[in-house]
C-alpha cells in the first residue's frame, strides 16, 4: 500500500443482522424438512469458522421435491392466471428488498464477498429480477412466441457459489413468471441465502411445491438433472460440468440451458480514456474476487500504451483493500473455499513456470481465511494456460496487440464466448469491434453491467440460452 495521508478506520457491518441460525434445512413442498442426506457445515471463508449446519437432500428427497413441484404445477401454479402469478412474484421482489440488509450480510458471511458488493449489487439486482419477471407473467402473449405460449412443467435448476442469491433470482424469477415450478439446488458451499429465500416463499404465501430448495453436493445436482419427471434443466457453473449435464440430458425431451465459463477479452486501444479504462479493468477482474464467469480475465492492450497501462493498473490495484468481507471499506474479500484457492494457486504457478511476468499487490492479507492477493501477469502469450483457462480468481493476464484486426483474432481465440470489453473513444471502432467479437455480452467503455432487461449468455462453450429480457423467457416456454 502506498503511503497515504488518509487511513481508513475499520467500518465493520454487524454480523447480527444476518440472523444466522445454528441449523438450516431443505425446503420441500412448502415446509422445511430434515434432509436425508449427510449434513454439511457451511463455513465463513474469511475466517474458516463454521457458520451453520445444513441438512442436505438425499436422492429420495430429490424425488419427493420433484413430485411436490409436479403437483403444484398441475394443481395450482401452471393453471393460475398470469396476473395472479405476477402478484406472488412481486411479493417475492418486495420481500427481498425488505430483508435486503439481512440477506446482504448473510451472503457476505457465507460467500466471502465484500459487503459493499452484496449490499449494492447482488441483493438489489436479485430483487430487480423478480420485479422484472413478475410483470411478464400476465404479458407472455406479447413476448413474441405466439399467443398463449405454454410453460414446460417442472424446472430443475443448479446454481453456483459465486452469486448465490442473484443466481437463484436469475433462475427462479423467469421460471415462475412463465408458469413453471422449481426444484433448485444451491451450491454446496453457499446454501444459506437460498434457504432464507425459502422463508420468503412462505411469507409470500406461495402455494406449497412451487419452489423447492435442496441443499447438497454435486451428486444431488446430478440426481435432479437425471430425474425423469423434470422437464427443464437450467445450469450455471463450469464448462466441464455443463458438458456432463448436456450428455446426461442428451436424447431426452428435457429442455436445457447452460451458463458456463468464460475467458473474456477486455480490449484497450491507445485512444481509450485510460483512467476510466483502468477502473473498468479493475472492476472487470477483481469484482467478486474474480469469481465471475464473465470476468475480464484476458486484458488485450494496444502495444504502444502497454507500459503506461501496466503502471496505472499496478498502482490502482495496490490501493485495493483486501480483507474482512463485512468491513464496508473492503474491496476484495475471501476466496470462496480452500479448494478454489488451491486451483487458483495452481494456475498462477503455471503462469510462473511458463514464463509470464507476475506482479502481486503488496496489500496485507489476513492470516486466517482463504485470501489471494490481486495478481497481474504481463508478457503473457496466447498459448499459456493463464491465457486459455478460466482461473476464477483475482488474476489478470495481460497480452498485447497492434491492430484492431489482431485484437479481434486474439480475443476470439478461445472456445469460450461469454463476454468481452472494448475501450476506445472512437464510436465506429466500438461498433465494428462489437460486431466482430464472438461473445454474448459486449461492454464498451464499461464492464460487468447486468440488468434483468438485458439478455445475458454465451456463445460456443460458454453455453447456450439467455437469461434476462424477452429472449430469456424462451428458456422456460414450450416454443
Amino acid at each position, binding site marked *: 500500500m502506498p503511503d497515504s495521508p488518509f487511513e481508513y478506520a475499520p467500518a465493520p457491518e454487524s454480523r447480527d443482522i444476518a440472523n444466522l441460525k445454528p441449523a438450516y434445512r431443505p425446503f420441500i413442498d412448502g415446509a422445511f424438512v430434515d434432509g436425508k442426506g449427510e449434513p454439511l457445515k457451511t463455513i465463513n471463508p474469511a475466517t474458516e469458522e463454521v457458520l451453520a449446519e445444513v441438512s442436505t437432500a438425499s436422492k429420495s428427497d430429490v424425488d419427493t421435491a420433484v413430485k411436490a413441484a409436479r403437483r403444484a404445477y398441475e394443481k395450482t401454479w401452471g393453471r393460475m392466471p398470469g396476473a395472479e402469478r405476477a402478484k406472488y412474484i412481486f411479493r417475492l421482489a418486495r420481500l427481498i428488498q425488505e430483508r435486503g440488509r439481512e440477506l446482504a450480510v448473510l451472503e457476505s458471511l457465507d460467500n466471502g464477498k465484500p459487503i459493499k458488493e452484496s449490499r449494492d449489487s447482488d441483493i438489489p439486482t436479485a430483487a430487480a429480477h423478480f420485479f422484472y419477471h413478475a410483470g411478464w407473467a400476465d404479458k407472455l402473449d406479447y413476448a413474441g412466441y405466439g399467443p398463449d405460449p405454454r410453460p414446460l412443467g417442472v424446472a430443475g435448476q443448479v446454481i453456483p457459489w459465486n452469486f448465490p442469491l442473484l443466481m437463484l433470482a436469475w433462475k427462479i424469477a423467469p421460471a415462475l413468471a412463465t408458469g413453471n415450478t422449481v426444484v433448485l439446488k444451491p451450491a454446496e458451499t453457499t446454501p444459506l441465502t437460498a434457504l432464507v429465500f425459502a422463508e420468503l416463499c412462505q411469507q409470500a404465501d406461495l402455494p406449497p411445491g412451487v419452489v423447492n430448495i435442496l441443499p447438497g453436493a454435486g451428486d444431488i445436482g446430478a440426481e435432479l438433472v437425471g430425474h425423469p419427471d423434470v422437464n427443464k434443466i437450467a445450469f450455471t457453473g463450469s464448462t466441464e460440468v*455443463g458438458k456432463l449435464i448436456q*450428455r446426461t440430458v*442428451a436424447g431426452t*425431451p428435457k429442455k436445457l440451458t447452460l451458463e458456463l465459463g468464460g475467458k473474456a477479452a477486455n480490449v484497450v486501444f491507445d485512444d481509450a480514456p485510460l483512467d476510466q479504462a483502468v477502473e473498468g479493468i479493475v472492476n472487470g477482474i477483481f469484482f467478486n474476487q474474480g469469481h465471475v464467469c464473465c470476468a475480464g480475465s484476458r486484458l488485450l492492450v494496444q502495444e504502444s500504451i502497454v507500459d503506461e497501462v501496466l503502471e496505472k493498473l499496478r498502482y490502482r490495484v495496490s490501493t485495493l483493500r483486501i480483507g474482512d468481507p463485512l468491513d464496508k471499506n473492503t474491496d476484495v474479500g475471501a476466496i470462496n473455499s480452500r479448494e478454489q484457492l488451491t486451483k487458483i494457486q495452481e494456475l498462477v504457478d503455471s503462469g510462473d513456470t511458463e514464463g509470464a511476468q507476475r506482479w502481486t499487490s503488496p496489500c496485507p492479507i489476513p492470516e486466517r481465511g482463504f485470501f489471494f492477493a490481486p495478481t497481474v501477469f504481463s508478457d503473457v502469450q496466447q498459448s499459456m494456460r493463464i491465457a486459455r483457462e478460466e482461473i476464477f480468481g483475482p488474476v489478470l493476464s495481460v497480452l498485447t496487440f497492434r491492430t484492431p484486426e489482431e485484437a479481434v483474432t486474439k480475443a476470439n481465440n478461445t472456445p469460450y464466448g461469454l463476454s468481452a470489453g472494448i475501450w476506445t473513444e472512437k464510436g465506429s471502432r466500438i461498433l465494428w469491434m462489437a460486431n466482430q467479437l464472438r461473445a*454474448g455480452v459486449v*461492454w464498451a467503455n464499461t464492464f460487468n453491467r447486468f440488468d434483468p432487461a*438485458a439478455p445475458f449468455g454465451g456463445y460456443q462453450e460458454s453455453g447456450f440460452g439467455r437469461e434476462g429480457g424477452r*429472449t430469456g423467457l*424462451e428458456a422456460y416456454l414450450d416454443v
Partner: protein
Amino acid sequence: MSDRLSVTKTYKLYIGGKFPRSESGRSYPVSDAKGKFLANAAHASRKDVRDAVVAARKAFGGWSGATAYNRGQVLFRVAEVLEGRRDQFISEVSACEGVPAKKAESLVDAAIDRWVWYAGWTDKIATVLGAANPVAGPYFSFTVPEPTGVVGVLAPQQSSLLGLVSVLAPVLATGSTAVVVSSAERPLPAITLSEVLATSDVPGGVANILTGRAAELGSWLASHGDVNALDPTGAAVADRVELAKAAAGTVKRVLSVPAEEPDWTRQPDIARLRRYLEAKTVWHPLGV
C-alpha cells in the same frame, strides 16, 4: 422417344463451391422408387466432412458479415435459378420419391416458395428478435441476433428436395454456413440443388452438400470442434442419443426435432431461424 443414347451424369459432392469426387473414391448406386438404377452417387467420407467444415468455416466470415439485404438478394437469386430448373427437379423428385409427376410438381413448387420465404427473412429476423433493453442505469443497451457459425445438417431422408430446402434455407438465412449430409437413398435433388447454389451467387463454402450416410457421417459432424450446431433431422432415432452426447463435447446447439419426419408442406414458423442465432447484448454508457 428418339434413338439417341442419353449422356448420363456423374454426380459428385459439393464442397467449397467445387464439385469433387469423394476423397475416399467411393460411390454407391441410387435407384428410383421401383428399384431401377438412376446413377452412382459419391459416398462421402470422414475426410470429406472435414474438408467441408473447413470450407464452411472459411466462408463464415464473409457470409455472416454480408449485409442482410445482400444475403436476401443472393438467396432470392437461388429461388430464381431453382425456378429455371423446375422441370429437372420435378423429374428427379418424382423418380427418387416415387411420387406422380403432379405431386412432385407441387413439392418442387413448395420448395421454391419456401426458399423465397426464407430469403425474405434475412433482413427482418433481427428486427423481430432483437431489442433495445430498458436497463436501470445510464447505459445504451441493445441486443442483436447473430449467426451461430457452422451448422451440421443431417437432411431429411424422405423428402429429398422440400425437406432439404426446409432445413438448409434457415441456416443460410441467418448468416450461418452449412455442411449438409443429404438423404442417403434420395440424393439426386440435393446434387442438383448444389448446382443451383453454385450458379446463383452463393459464395463457395457457404453451403456444402455431401451425399452419403447420416449414420456414418453424423458422428463426425457431431464431434467436430469447429461445428457450432447440429440438426439431427435425418439421423435414425436410435442414433440420436449418441449424436447428442458427442455434440455435448463442444457444447453444440442441438436442434430438438421430432422422431418422425414432419410434414414439410406445412408452413414453418421462425423456430428454425431462432435456433441458429445467438443473442449478443452490447452496452455503452450514456453521457456528454
